[in-house]
């Protein structure tokens, strides 16, 4: 089996006062290497919670998550941090760049937290990525001085800097106009094709989801066959 991520009976619940709420309940799914896939669900469907668990930012209440067939449910916070650093790249709707750092500094930030020896020079790789994304001339700008589309490219570059196996994009086009959104989607698609990085798009927009090769529909915290 060559799944990057496999979820086995994963449930995430929390309490709202006395009432127990299942944000995600009993999900089984696996995402293969080199896959280009979307998770489609409406707001409140549990898709974000699911993404956070896939991205090792959150841990399930019950069930197991495997990353490269390693059960990560029992890992410590430090080990999860290192796994995120090595294996997962995030792209958020809000871009989530650090405004006091320049574009280049934002892109190399994950490399500051690595615990292993890198087989590349972070600055050099960051510059290559920025060149490729057409924003090299913005490398010394601060994020709030460049456009949203450019910021999202920076975020994608940051997600890629550590050569992760998987990129998780949470509504990556949500804050962009449709043209810029399309460009970001093109970028993610080409990255998947050219580098083989697994790309998971989390969205509530059918059109966005339709661009990926495979879709997973989420409703009320469960995987369903059809998106309604």
């Amino acid at each position, binding site marked *: 089996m060559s799944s990057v991520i496999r979820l086995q009976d994963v449930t995430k619940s929390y309490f709202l006062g006395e009432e127990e709420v299942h944000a995600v309940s009993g999900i089984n799914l696996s995402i293969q290497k080199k896959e280009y896939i979307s998770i489609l669900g409406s707001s409140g469907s549990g898709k974000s919670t699911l993404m956070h668990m896939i991205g090792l930012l959150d841990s399930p209440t019950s069930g197991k998550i495997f990353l490269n067939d390693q059960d990560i449910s029992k890992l410590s916070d430090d080990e999860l941090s290192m796994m*995120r650093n090595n294996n997962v790249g995030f792209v958020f709707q809000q871009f989530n760049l650090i405004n006091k750092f320049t574009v280049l500094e934002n892109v190399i930030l994950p490399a500051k937290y690595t*615990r292993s020896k890198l087989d590349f020079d972070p600055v050099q790789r960051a510059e290559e990525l920025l060149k490729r994304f057409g924003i090299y001339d913005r490398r010394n700008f601060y994020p709030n001085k460049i456009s949203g589309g450019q910021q999202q490219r920076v975020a994608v570059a940051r997600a890629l800097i550590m050569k992760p196996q998987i990129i998780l994009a949470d509504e990556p086009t949500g804050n962009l106009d449709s043209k810029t959104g399309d460009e970001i989607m093109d970028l993610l698609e080409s990255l998947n094709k050219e580098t083989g990085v697994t790309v998971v798009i989390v969205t509530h927009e059918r059109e966005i989801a339709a661009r990926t090769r495979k879709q997973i529909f989420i409703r009320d915290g469960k995987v369903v066959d059809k998106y309604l």
Partner: protein
Amino acid sequence: MKSAIVSQTEIIHLFKSAIVDLKRNKVRSFLTSLGIMIGVLSVVMLIALGLGLKNYIKGQFESMGANMIMILPGSGFTGGGGFSGAGVVGGAEFDERDVTTLRRVRGIDYIVPVTMKAVTVEANGKDVFGYVMGVNDEAFKMFNTKTIAGSLFSKGAGTSQAKIAVLGYTAAEKLFTNPKEGVGQVVRFSDQRFKVVGVAEKKGDPEQDSAVYVPYKSIYGSLNPKKTFWAIYLGVKDEKQLTQVKKDTEEALLKRYKEDDFSVTEQSEILSTVNQIFNILNLVLIAIGSISLLVGGIGIMNIMYATVTERIKEIGIRRAVGATRKDILLQFLMESVVVSLLGGLLGLIFSILIVLVVRFFFPAAVNGLAVAIALLVSGGIGVFFGVFPARKAASLPPIEAIRYE
């Protein structure tokens, strides 16, 4: 690969990003470190002044030589818990007979009977306040006095009733403007006229510099009608004999006086008492100064808590891209340590500048202890008061932090 130890490159990176963050809020960073700056300033200054006072007092005693024994009336400096000088009721009144007795003690280098009176000295149409010191010629050996003009008392003159005087530098300067011109002039006090035979070089000791030295017998009947001495100072030839000489001196005096009527004290005893007093004084001063350091530390903690709240989103982003709790903890800890050290350093620099100015009037000194306290304590305060906000930052769940708006 890495465990509990923080590597050097990590420290450098943490330090750099701390500087970046502190620079972003220059005014706030400065105000935060101001608290520590004032704290360090007050501690260092208090130590410097305490030390200066100690050095000053020590210098006063040491200028009279280390192998010295002081004979004072009363139960004395170390025994009675304070100076009990001349005129203490029930104390011995030393006179010429005691000097003669003491001359027989073996191992003595010099004996100086001292009479001291504060008077107004007139000369050259001016009058100044000064001390008349009735001494013998050996006093100059004791004080290690040299002249800039004229000469000191000769052996015979020092024990005679000759109306001659050696002026301290300041006294001569006040009376004659150019101190050297005092030689050969006449000074008057208590209706007595004394011819100035010499002017002493500047000693830096206000009492000695404003003194008018006269042969002790020359003021018998006038300033010293009872022909008694304020104290008798003995010099010992060899430091090793100090204890023996002191014992012999006591025995010699006990033939005439009761035990409680006089005291025989070594210079070193006085010095150690002075040291003790000032060590305690210094501790009290440090404790007082530390209160402002504490306040400064609380200021740092307060600001760091605000900083953490302000930067929850940033913490979330850093955690998402792989920062561990320890990374976040160290980041915030480094910031508070840098702010605190900055304050410590500024405080140290300012106190050194102030001490340099104060030194014109007073021998204040910044010593290694003060520097060590400034840097270690301010660094320590950064860690101590920074660790709580930093722990708060580190313990934020990444998922909540990154969603925070």
